[in-house]
């Protein structure tokens, strides 16, 4: 026990002065193996997305009608779909779409939500009430219905899908950040900043926002998984990304279901890809929450 503690101490002493984030990450990996596993999957996904152009054996868009519905083989690792397109290449390029849609929408919603939440907590009073009402309004729509309405107004297409996914998630983030920020508002350093004559905007952006990083990060990772799922549902309903783009949710639409018995690889691989990536993001976010929330440590 003591030698272990000794090793730990030495490692910490060595690194913590120069690389505090390294120490935090190492601690995270050791204490949260599940989260670490999730992180590994996420990194693999990111690499697949970045290097898709290099790794993918086929163009994800080129139809090959002589090779429709082929089972997995040496030339097509995951088989081909109903247009003869290579499923493996489409999965690789699909990770690009998933990450792009996932990151954009969760970044948008978490950031806008955080700003709204902090603003609401900081100003209090009427502004708080108005923002609260607005968030309530948005919250009372089921997620997918609000996304449907946004798509109905803006039309389909990837940018609109990102908006359609982000908008319903804004109020959820705003609420969580607001409750964190409420406790912040009472602290002396905010009063001090005020006394020093800092503008409201400066206090919000430079002082309060950085201190709600923990819930912000947790929301971000939680939303990423949700965003990927929502995109898949929207594509399934025909309101998401359009053919012939490579997107996992789109790959599950129509033909994958029709040919589910004859050509199950069409449905299995995209389904697995979605489930695995969302799973990884959720695991990671979950473990992050555990790591960042001191109230959850029981020895």
């Amino acid at each position, binding site marked *: 026990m003591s030698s272990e503690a000794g090793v730990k101490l030495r490692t910490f002493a060595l690194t913590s002065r120069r690389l505090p984030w390294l120490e935090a990450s190492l601690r995270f990996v050791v204490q949260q193996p599940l989260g670490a596993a999730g992180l590994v999957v996420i990194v693999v996904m990111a690499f697949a997305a970045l290097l898709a152009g290099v790794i993918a054996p086929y163009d994800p868009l080129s139809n090959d009608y002589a090779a*429709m519905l082929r089972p997995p083989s040496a030339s097509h690792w995951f088989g081909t779909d*109903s*247009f003869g397109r290579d499923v493996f290449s489409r999965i690789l390029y699909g990770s690009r779409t998933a990450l792009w849609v996932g990151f954009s929408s969760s970044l948008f919603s978490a950031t806008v939500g955080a700003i709204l939440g902090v603003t609401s907590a900081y100003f209090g009073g009427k502004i708080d009430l108005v923002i609260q009402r607005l968030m309530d309004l948005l919250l009372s729509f089921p997620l997918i219905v609000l996304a449907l309405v946004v798509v109905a107004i803006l*039309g389909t297409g990837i940018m609109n899908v990102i908006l359609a996914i982000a908008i319903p998630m804004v109020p959820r983030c705003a609420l969580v950040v607001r409750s964190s920020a409420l406790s912040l508002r009472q602290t002396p350093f905010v009063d001090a900043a005020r006394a020093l004559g800092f503008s409201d905007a400066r206090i919000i952006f430079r002082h309060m926002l950085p201190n709600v990083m923990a819930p912000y990060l947790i929301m971000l990772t939680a939303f990423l998984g949700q965003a990927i799922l929502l995109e898949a549902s929207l594509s399934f309903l025909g309101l998401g990304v359009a*053919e012939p783009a490579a997107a996992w949710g789109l790959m599950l639409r129509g033909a994958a279901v029709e040919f589910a*018995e004859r050509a199950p690889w069409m449905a299995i691989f995209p389904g697995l890809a979605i489930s695995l990536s969302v799973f990884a993001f959720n695991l990671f976010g979950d473990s992050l929450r555990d790591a960042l929330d001191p109230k959850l440590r029981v020895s």
Partner: protein
Amino acid sequence: MKTSKKVSMNLCRAMVLMISLVSLVFQATAQAAEKEKPRTGGELVFAVGETPPSYDGHRETTFAMLHPVAPHYSTLLRFDPQNYPKIIGDVAESWSVSKDGLTYTFKIRKGIKFHDGSLLTSKDVKATYEKIIFPPQGVASARKGSYGVVDKMETPDIYTIVFYLKHPSASFLANLASPWNFIYSAEKLAKDPRWYEKNIMGSGPFTFVEYVPGSHWVGKKNPNYYMKDRPYLDGYKAIFIKDTAPRVAAVRSGQALIEFRGFNPAARDDIVKALGNKVVVQESPWTCNLTVTINNGKKPFDDPRVRRALSLAIDRQGASKALSQISLMKFVGGLFRPGSQFATPDAELAKLTGFGKNIEAARKEARRLLKEAGVPEGFSFTLKNRNIKEPYEVTGVYVIDQWRQIGLNVTHLPQEGGPYFNDFRQGNYETGIDFACDFMDEPDLQLQKFLSSDKSPLNYARYKDSVLDDLYEKQSRATNPKERLKLLRQFEKRVLDEQAYQFHVLWWQRIIPHWAKLKGWKITPNHYVNQDLRDVWLAE
């Protein structure tokens, strides 16, 4: 003596042979008759893919209304279920046409009763057609435009109705056989012309039992139907299943015996594999197709060379082979359904732009035309489409891929129905996938789409062409079939070959797998006619 014995023996043998032959024949026919004799009783459960907006056949245009509601009504004429497109009478017992083709006289069957017991007379037929052709204020009639040729109608006695036309029309009789023209009660219409939108009261083989919106529709046998031995069924139940997967599953599991619109090849194969000889598949070409429509008002699509290049690039033979395995798209055809009486023979069709058999040469020609018209390599534009996977998006993907091969970079824009129709109507698109589905093969109906935009609201391609308008009028009045065919060929050549204003990709295939115990229903080229279920029976 020896010879006479031989002769008599031969005679004997011959007689025995003859008797056995005759008795065999009798047996065979008796057995056959036994097999074919319809069994009465049973409830037919079938699946329908959408729910009906209202119940009024004169106003709706969707099969979702027709499939559950048609069994409650009769029409004046109908298509012979076993012999499409032959026309026979339903409410009409017989009819005659005057020599000049301007007067149609119909004799109505005596003793037809509505479900409420009242007698069906010429008054009801007249009131029905008044509603369809001259609808009163506030009443919508979706097919009014097809009856512009009617001048007036008269009822000299309670079993006779006469239609007076403004000019002879080759398609008038067929229009009267329209499955949408339910005969309504004059009394009900007089009280409230919109009564039939929310109520059912007809003279058909089945009476109305219940409708649970979004769930199911139930009808039961009409004991006073004018055909004494029909209907064979005790009743029917239509269950509404919006999504394709559970709909196919319903037929596969036997919860529904049939779906009357059509399944795609994958569904058919799954059902056949799972059920083997418990299932029968009926297939037919479908009077539905997908076309590429081009906004002729936008550059560079106002140049016929560009449009013809777009048509040349599409390998229709290849599409037929490939797409028919995964979707409803199958038959190569021009303006008329392949296999119908108006269809252009293959040899002639192959001469039209885009319908040739040599795709390499066609693509080379397409590239040359584009270059000549000044369209650069990699030119990009958009293709608007409906967001329905099968067969719209499938076709969109195919067409885009074909255009890629002549150096064009096209973005696919599937949309919801609302914005789709909006954009087409307002001309807010460059190219798009359009569709047409008709209840009969009749050029008067099907060519409306290609008339000048100011004459036809169905033409989204935004062009004016008086030659076409002229040809249309001529063929509509041509009572000589040969003459008419000639005019139709000219029309087709101008639209598809010379101008390529909008052109066909493929015509659909109709595939209906159903349980073998369902008998008496024969497939027709469209999913609108013969849905009154009166000849349908269940074998067990």
